[in-house]
């Protein structure tokens, strides 16, 4: 059989299209290689080495990891972070969701309310941490005199090892508007037809919430939980500002030595880059594990609308 001497041009339509696609996404590909893949591999290597930037890295094998597992401060920082997450996530979920439900009603001036509640989220950072330090100040602050009005003797808040964490959680709740707005978006995505159907079936307010609203917004709750968990491990600015103003980074009795803070100290205070890199990789594994765990468990409690479509 003779082969036809027909040569396809190299730049076929589909090749040309691929070429354009890769041309347009090239900034990200370059950035991904230079600022993500490269650094990740390098930090994996550093985590097995002794490295202080000045001298060449020296291979240590698993020593950094072994030392970490023996380091009481490492465990303390994990415990602090998990403790924060265990207080901040549920409180943020309840309050944020509650506010979203209120702001989803047709009340006068609803846009103004939404704006007000979201406001603290746009000024997060150093200024907010400084502001709350002053509010929590047991001597000249705002909160304790207020509590005294109700006959409560306020604690030392950020200066008290037992109360520093609740103080940070309160500070965190002030910015609840951020997650509230996401819950609100979820609530607005619930088709009104479902409520009408439930009403026709005689469901009362509570039943409509429990059997319609809640299942429909579980994907959003799920999203917020995952992001909140990752956020807890990134928590830094507030504790750094509060700690360094109090002359005590990590808080009283290291009660606010967050994981990211300890990592920062190892990397940029002691310049123990190998040790800090090992912490970073353990963090990555923790985040991966938690995300997978939530994903897995989500199958039992997260409800996606697509499932309904599939079944009907």
């Amino acid at each position, binding site marked *: 059989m003779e082969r036809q001497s027909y040569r396809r041009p190299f730049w076929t339509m589909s090749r040309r299209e691929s070429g354009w696609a890769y041309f347009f996404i090239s900034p990200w590909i370059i950035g991904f290689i230079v600022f993500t893949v490269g650094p990740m591999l390098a930090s994996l290597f550093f985590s097995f080495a002794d490295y202080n930037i000045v001298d060449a890295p020296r291979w240590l094998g698993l020593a950094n990891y072994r030392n970490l597992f023996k380091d009481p401060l490492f465990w303390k920082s994990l415990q602090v972070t998990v403790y924060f997450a265990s207080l901040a996530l549920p409180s943020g979920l309840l309050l944020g969701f509650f506010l979203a439900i209120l702001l989803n009603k047709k009340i006068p001036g609803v846009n103004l309310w939404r704006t007000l509640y979201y406001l603290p989220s746009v000024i997060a950072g150093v200024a907010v941490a400084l502001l709350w330090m002053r509010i929590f100040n047991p001597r*000249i602050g705002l909160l304790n005199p207020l509590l005294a009005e109700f006959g409560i003797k306020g604690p030392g808040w950020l200066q008290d090892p037992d109360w520093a964490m609740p103080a940070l959680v309160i500070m965190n709740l002030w910015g609840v508007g951020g997650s509230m707005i996401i819950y609100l978006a979820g609530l607005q995505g619930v088709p009104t037809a479902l409520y009408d159907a439930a009403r026709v079936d005689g469901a009362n307010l509570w039943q409509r919430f429990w059997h319609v609203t809640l299942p429909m917004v579980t994907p959003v709750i799920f999203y917020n939980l995952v992001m909140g968990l990752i956020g807890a491990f990134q928590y830094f600015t507030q504790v750094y*500002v509060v700690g360094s103003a109090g002359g005590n980074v990590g808080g009283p009795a290291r009660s606010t030595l967050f994981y990211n803070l300890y990592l920062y100290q190892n990397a940029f205070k002691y310049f123990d880059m190998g040790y800090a890199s090992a912490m970073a990789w353990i963090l990555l594994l923790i985040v991966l594990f938690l995300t997978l765990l939530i994903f897995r468990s989500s199958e039992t409690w997260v409800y996606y609308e697509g499932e309904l479509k599939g079944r009907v």
Partner: protein
Amino acid sequence: MATLTRSPLADVKIQELLIKGITTLILAVGAVIILIPLVFMFSTSLKDRNQLRRSPPPLIPIEYTMVEVNGKEEPLYQVTVEGRSRRMALVRNLPDGKGVFVDPANPEREFELLIADQKPMQHWEAHWENYPEALTSVPFGRYLINTCIVTFVGMAGMLMSSSMVAYGFSRFRAPWLNVLFMVLLSTIMLPSQVRLIPMYVLFQKVGWVDTLLPLIVPQFFANAYDVFFLRQFFMTIPLEMDDAARIDGASPIQTFLYVILPQGRPALVAVAVLHFIWAWNDFYEPLIYLHSRQKWTVAVGLQTFSALYAVNTHLIAAASVVMVVPCILLFFFSQRIFTQGVVVSGVKG
């Protein structure tokens, strides 16, 4: 005769009205709680050291009114004497919480009264001079300029690169493109710490540490959040518009510049605003990369200032106000972006 009964419909109406009322009430209380810290920040920035020492701190900048009695400054009180309310100065403290009050116009006649029963006179006293003082006692102007450079140059880079990448992901078919998009999305979950240290080393080796470049240059290589958001928006631009441009002989670059970018303006504005808020408040990376005083951004300058001069709470508060006001203004002018657009597409995509 049939008695008049309330229809169940009216009951539902009353119930709804009640719910709305309670909702508004709860929201109003919450709004006050949200706003008090901000009011407190502003009022603190207008106080002097004397006013700062007061406990509980008043929510507005007020000061006790003083009056001159026999050549001495004495606090003025609203007192009740002989059944009449008068203004008198407290000139001496006595045991058992009592004090000697006199009328400033007639200081000879003294009254012994319980101090706790009298109301000290106060007046509005705002120290606006805190602002120039705060802005000049550290090179705050320099910090503002640095922050603006980082914010706006970075924003330009982010807009250019992210919109290009988003266009690439929204309009073309190519092998592995979907996989790459998944990879892009997964980087949202990636904790930045695993890249941080080698990036620091990299920037150190090229001599960029202690310059603004490490904060700006990476912005020119797109980021997952903004690409994702822009792509979601670009997908809603009708393909017919691309086709029309192509039939007119436009290349994909021209289509991108003259069709997609103009059509995608709302989304571009939204990511630009969000980028501003993020870059303006960013603390971690400036803290790591910027070492010398002259290079700091406002966030780092404010933090260092507060750690060094904790007694100057009023100046710290003034600097804080200067830092948060641009964000608040931007927020009010573009609040729809925050409270409607962005997150909706962010979640539902």
